[in-house]
């Protein structure tokens, strides 16, 4: 299991490093259209062939991989921090604070997130750059994705509140925010780590779904979701087209496998 974890972490780091290196390579372009070579098969010049507009599929995949591996964990981190704050406060203080936050969490969980994303996207300024729209998309995913982890954190915080060492800390004069920050939060770390690692593949797949619907970053910016659109066209279903799918599946698997054992048990 340890070996698999290490392998997963190595693989993810490797993917990210290659993606960054490819982006920095001179002359590399994910957007240039070689129209004479549209839908070209793999060759020395285009190792994964070209898409239907003649763009280098490998360059697009590498760029999309880099951006997804950067933005999905960032969004997951933001969502986990927010979940820690909301869930920690609700679980620790209880009472009206708990009831209010639980209601907000219920409301968030009942929102049809896809329609909300569509509505917010429609409100974006039209001249927002593709990267901005992608960051906003991930930001929205983070803003919508904290509710479920907050519930778990709240349950953990409630459990800790009743534990003996917290009673002891209280007896020693500790309380309020200090107790929350010094005693509760460090003990919630495994829960938060689990939520963080669970959120990353969820956000990756959510962006992929939006991209499949044509609602991710605008042209010519490549994202995994945009690239997966190629799979909708049965005439272009060649082996190299599945490279994006492989990259998505591989990274999602890796994120699942890097759970430490104790986190998996939680």
């Amino acid at each position: 299991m340890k070996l698999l974890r290490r392998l997963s972490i190595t693989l993810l780091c490797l993917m990210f490093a290659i993606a960054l290196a490819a982006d920095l390579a001179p002359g590399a372009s994910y957007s240039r259209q070689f129209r004479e070579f549209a839908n070209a098969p793999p060759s020395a010049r285009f190792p994964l062939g070209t898409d239907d507009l003649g763009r280098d599929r490998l360059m697009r995949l590498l760029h999309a991989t880099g951006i997804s591996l950067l933005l999905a964990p960032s969004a997951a981190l933001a969502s986990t921090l927010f979940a820690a704050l909301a869930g920690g406060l609700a679980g620790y203080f209880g009472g009206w604070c708990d009831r209010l936050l639980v209601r907000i969490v219920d409301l968030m969980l009942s929102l049809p997130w896809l329609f909300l994303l569509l509505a917010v996207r429609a409100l974006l300024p039209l001249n927002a750059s593709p990267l901005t729209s992608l960051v906003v998309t991930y930001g929205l995913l983070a803003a919508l994705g904290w509710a479920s982890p907050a519930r778990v954190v709240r349950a953990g915080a409630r459990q800790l509140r009743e534990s003996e060492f917290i009673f002891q800390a209280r007896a020693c004069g500790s309380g309020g925010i200090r107790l929350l920050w010094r005693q509760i939060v460090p003990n919630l770390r495994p829960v938060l780590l689990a939520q963080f690692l669970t959120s990353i593949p969820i956000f990756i797949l959510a962006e992929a779904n939006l991209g499949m619907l044509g609602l991710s970053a605008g042209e010519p910016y490549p994202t995994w979701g945009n690239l997966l659109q190629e799979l909708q066209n049965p005439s272009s279903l060649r082996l190299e087209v599945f490279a994006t799918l492989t990259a998505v599946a591989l990274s999602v698997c890796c994120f699942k496998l890097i759970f430490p054992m104790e986190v998996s048990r939680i």
Partner: protein
Amino acid sequence: MTRRYAFRLWFALALITPAFSQVADELRFCLRSDPKTFDPLAVEDDSSEAVRYLTAGVLLRVNRVTQQLSPELALSWKVDRQGRQITFQLRRNVAFSDGTPFTADDVAFTMNRLMDPKLHSVTADAFRSSDLPPRVSVESPDKVSILFAAPVSSLERLFDQVPVLSGQSRQKTAVLGPFYVADYKPGVEVLLQRNPNYWKTDARGIRLPYLKSVHLIIQQSREIELVRFRRGEVDLVNSLDPDAFEQLTLQAPTSVYDAGPSLESEMMWFNQVASAPLPSYKKAWFISREFRRAISESVNRADLCRVIYKGHARPAEGPVSPANRFWFNSALKPHPHDTASAIHRLDRDGFRLWDGTLYDRGGHPVEFSVVTNAGNRPRERMAAMIQQDLATVGIKLNVVTLDFPSLIERITRSFNYEACLLGLTNLDLDPSAQMNVWLSSAGNHQWNPNQKEPATAWEAEIDRLMRAQAAEPRDAARKRLFDRVQQIVSEEAPFIYLVNKNSLMAFSRQIRNTAPAAVQPQAYWNIEVLQKTTQLAGSK
């Protein structure tokens, strides 16, 4: 032993049944959605239109290949009084599907019902040249004349869309067309059965239609439709996209047809609404003819046709596709792809290209967005190609894909957009059907709709020409007027026409007498003579 043998035989037959599931003389094809109505006079959507076409008997029919008018239930017709009156001599000994005889009274009943304002019929709108209803006079059982208060342009051609209803039949489904609606399972299919009283016969005297029934399968997904076609469960696909066409060409080249340019065109326009929430310097770009022409000349239409439509499209000349044989202005040519000329035009208009970026007089870098509907792959790809083309003249184009309701909201209500890329289909060949687009006061005058007064001299000229052609009874004179409209549109480029898509379709090899047309319904316009051979579907 006999019982066991019988069971085995039954079992074997049950196994092979799927292979024989398609019966000869039974045609199957897909509709995109359920028909919204079976009232042939209240049709608005494509599926209802398909049912109407297959079931309705009309007085005159536009031949979809020759685009000429041919007599159907009317033996002859005569247009008088400067296009205000039409008189029909009707065919005798014709009966509705329920046996009720067809007379001039039925034509009168149909026209009166059609023109009833309570019906809100879209078909009737084309006849409404004035507020007064037409006067229908039954002169004899086989002669009827209809007098309109004001001239109606291309009056006789409008009757292609008017199904004659029975004024006497008790059955609401009684029709004069080749088929009648026998069954409807919402979300599943519409079953049409052969009209036993259909009046037409072939050259050998055999009563038409040849097919016994038509199954219209409700299937929203084009991919599933294609799969079903490949499996032999569907006999024809009325409209194919270029990717599917290429795919089928590789698998079964004899089953696909490219009928040439269709009436569909893809185009782009700039928002010229004065009250639009856009910066004034951008509004100044969009109302500049030179700017629009420069954009048009920057676009490589040949590449769009080759890369996106795999050669199954052609660069568009103007508002009318060459598929519309009579009204197409053959003197027009597509705007050439000429970057040097585009830069020259921009230069004349005060723009400056510096370090790969185009700046306007005020020093603003030229950057704008184009909205299109999400999920339409050809359109998204087309926008990406235009993006690269415009980059060569220093313009930054942002492509924004929106869900359809948001897009419509922006282009029709809030006007919060800069440019839009969409398609247009002219279902009617006659230019009068496009009055709601070309008149400056019209709601579909997309670049600047609902104007109280024409904003520009050329729009005022288009208004004048369109009104003049609508009031002109002679087709040749109308053609001259509408040619001028097309020329103005080409010169001023309020719509930047990009490509005319070809009409692509596929037929099962069991179907005979096919005659693909560019005009809707492309594949089954001659439904009454389509035949299906007895070759089994399982043998494909």
